[in-house]
């Protein structure tokens, strides 16, 4: 089982959190909210493209979502493979952090 990079993990989570409203900009803004910093577009969309090619994420175009005069907006959604991946990632994260106390307090003292 390949381990996803941190940004891929964040993207999967962002797409899950956004549910039916996960498109390019909203995904980027979600990651920016989660991390508290601005992200370059390339740092978001290149991994997103990789997730899509790996089959963790699929695209769809919502009916009647065409922007004024533009093309229909492309939305992103987790595949069942992506959901399984998130479950595994959660288990891995939890086992990594298991038994670690609040480090902020730990290192202050």
């Amino acid at each position, binding site marked *: 089982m390949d381990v996803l990079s941190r940004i891929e993990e964040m993207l999967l989570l962002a797409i899950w959190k956004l549910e039916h409203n996960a*498109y*390019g*900009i909203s995904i*980027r803004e979600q990651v920016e909210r989660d991390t508290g910093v601005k992200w*370059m*577009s*390339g*740092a978001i*969309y*290149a*991994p*997103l*493209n*990789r997730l*899509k*090619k790996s089959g963790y994420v699929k*695209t769809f175009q919502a009916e009647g979502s065409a*922007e*004024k005069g*533009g*093309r229909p*907006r*492309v939305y992103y959604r987790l595949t069942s493979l992506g959901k399984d991946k998130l479950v595994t990632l959660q288990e891995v994260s939890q086992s990594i952090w298991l038994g670690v106390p609040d480090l902020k307090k730990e290192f202050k003292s």
Partner: protein
Amino acid sequence: MRQEEFRLPRAVRMLFGLFVDCEMLSTIEEDLAQRYAEAAAASGTSYARLRSAGAMLSLLVSFAIESLLWSLTMFKNYLKVALRRIRRRKVYAFINILGLSIGLACFMLIGLWVEDELSFDRFHENKDRIFRVLNRMEDGSASYSLTYALGPALEAQYAEVEVACRVWPWYGSLVKYADRSFMEFNIALTDPSFFQVFSFPLLKGDPATALQDRLSIVLSEETARRYFGD
């Protein structure tokens, strides 16, 4: 938010098209448009233009690296699949690989041979107009021994033959000069037209008159040194 007219330039669109499909392209375009509108509202259109040019460049670099990594991943995957197939069907794989390698080896050897054949005597000015006349033997092989009369006959009777030149190699001849004798293996009799057909450069003498005389001879530099000293 006022939607400023934003469109990816054609060239940039095509460049992106090398790495991503049209869905990802429209995602990127939407993002760039939003960033452009934000920057334009904050600090004017010229600054926003600069910013989006930078953003496009960094996006392109990201996608280029990404697609390189991706092709590497896919290559590893293909390799794995191929190895598995080979392992599962050993005999077929053996036959396939053997056939392919023999074929490739033949191709390479033929290529080398042709290149070697074509690499000789490139300096002749008329090289595309020089032909060698051969004699088809009864067993299907070809022989260069022809009757002496053929040269002049071809020249006289065929308009397309400009000049004929006969060459008669004398293998292993004894050559005597003063009191010294030499066994020569590379010696040939030829027609005066020899230098008209072949453009061997002469160190000394005129190619037009070099072989006119019945008893004239043309020597290589090395042979001349051997016979006459320095």
